[in-house]
């Protein structure tokens, strides 16, 4: 395989340090334990497949062109979350969903998706937005707000909203359905 300049540039973009605050400059090697060599290769092939015009990152339209993803209720929220994601961020993001990831990691991913404004607290507005993605417009605003208030009270949140610790506590022993397996060697 010849390495011409365009390819080298592309590689640099794909592996550029992450913009997301939690994963600043994490070398890919740190993720070993959850994502092994074969899975990284498979994910890379998948990344190249999704990155249609070889930009080095995947835009949200390219994500939403996957039919199964576009009909997911959380597709819009996720497309903001993974906007212009490069390969390193792609792997880091998906490692949280892995069947092999620890409970703490899984909860962290869920918390980050739920926390729409990304300030580290799930405020009532965050909750309202996420729930709207999930349930659409079937519930009246007042009813939704009442459910949100009761949830906040039940979880012991203060005015700013739920912290990660409170979120973790609230979900207690609930079985989390995050058990992603990367198909390798298909």
């Amino acid at each position, binding site marked *: 395989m010849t390495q011409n300049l365009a390819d080298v540039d592309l590689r640099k973009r794909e592996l550029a340090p992450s913009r997301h605050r939690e994963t600043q400059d994490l070398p890919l090697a740190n993720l070993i334990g959850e994502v092994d060599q074969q899975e990284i290769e498979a*994910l890379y*092939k*998948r990344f190249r*497949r*999704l990155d*249609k015009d070889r930009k080095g990152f995947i835009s949200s339209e390219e*994500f*939403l*062109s*996957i*039919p*199964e*993803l*576009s*009909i*997911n*209720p*959380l*597709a819009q929220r*996720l497309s903001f979350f993974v906007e212009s994601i490069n390969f390193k961020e792609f792997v880091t993001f*998906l490692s949280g*969903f892995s069947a092999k990831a620890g409970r703490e990691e*899984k909860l962290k*991913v*869920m918390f980050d*998706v*739920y926390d729409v404004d990304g300030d580290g607290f799930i405020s009532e507005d965050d*909750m309202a937005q*996420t*729930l709207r993605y*999930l*349930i*659409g417009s*079937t*519930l009246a605003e007042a*009813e*939704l707000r*009442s*459910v*949100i208030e*009761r*949830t906040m009270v*039940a*979880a012991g949140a203060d005015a700013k909203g739920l912290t990660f610790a409170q*979120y973790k506590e*609230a*979900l*207690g022993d*609930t*079985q*989390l*359905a*995050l*058990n*992603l397996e*990367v*198909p390798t060697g*298909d």
Partner: protein
Amino acid sequence: MASKASFMRRTSANPVGLTSLKNIHLSSIDLPHLDGGLKEGVSPDVQRQIEALVDQARSEFPDYAGSNLLSDVLDISSPLNDAASAIVDDSFLRCFTSAVDEPWNWNFYLLPLWILGVVLRNAIIFPLRLLTLLLGALVFIVAFMVAEALPAKHRTLAERRVVQFMAQIFVTSWTGVIRYHGPRPVSTANRVWVANHTSMIDYAVLCAYTPFAAIMQLHPGWVGLFQKRYLNSLGCLYFNRTQAKDRTLVHQRMRDHVADPNSMPLLIFPEGTCVNNEYCVMFRKGAFDLGATVCPIAIKYNKIFVDAFWNSKRQSFTAHLLKIMRSWALVCDVYFLEPQSKQPGESSQEFAERVQAMIAKRARLTVAPWDGYLKYYNLAEKHPDLIESQRRTYSAIISKHVVPL
């Protein structure tokens, strides 16, 4: 707490990622919300699967008691898992992925032989093939001009024979080893031929045996010129897949063509797009709606020397042709299957599925229940009801916690 049932298995036969419903307990009050009919974009097969699973849940959870406010509101792991699974691998894009070549030549013995092979193929065989193709094209152009000049009685026959000759030149330029099984198609009224689609070379492979008129997309560049100038004589029909109005017009012209016993056999690719010859996407019902007998053709390429799948987004047609010309040979089996008629009480879509099953079985393809045109449009935009039916389920869960005021 009621135990979780495995509501939906995520298998290749169930691509509509609704495993998020797996962890949700449904009460009998919620289930009617899931019955809102799904439409195109997802085949009736998937719709039936979903309905079957709804019935199953209905029987397993007649009564739902106890829910946890916090986990119902805060636990978004199910839809997230679906989303991540779709990101990592989905059954739609799988249909358009080329097979991966594992390197086999990295050893002392095979590498020199392989290098010799590369030199032979590219430096000796390829120029000979290119020469054959160009000379053949010249002969074709001249012969076609002669055929056009003939009196009307012989003209159409001559033009068709000349186009068939060109298709044969193409096949020779790829060293096509093509085996045809089954009866040769003959011009008959009220018959239409359908085939699975892998690349535009399908048309040349079939025309080399017997010339067909086909419904095609008009392509840019030299292909378009070829289409407009020469293929019109066969009665080919052109359409634009993104124009909806075009469809009714083309449909009418198809009917007229099929009704005429002197017209060429009409070939239609009901998938509407090129697929990788391992899968078979949803057949569009247009060809099955004409009231004609459908003769299925199954085309299976042997990938031993070259992968004949044309990924039109990755490669231009010229690049695709050159790739084939630089390989050793193009090996292919074409099966002409038994003509099928629409059974009484069968809808066009069911008829299409039945014929698709026949072709898929013969060509050893896996049926994927997605519409091939999803390459060009966003499923959620066109069919928001597919999201709405999922939303109703979640809404039912959340609304349990609404305290009546």
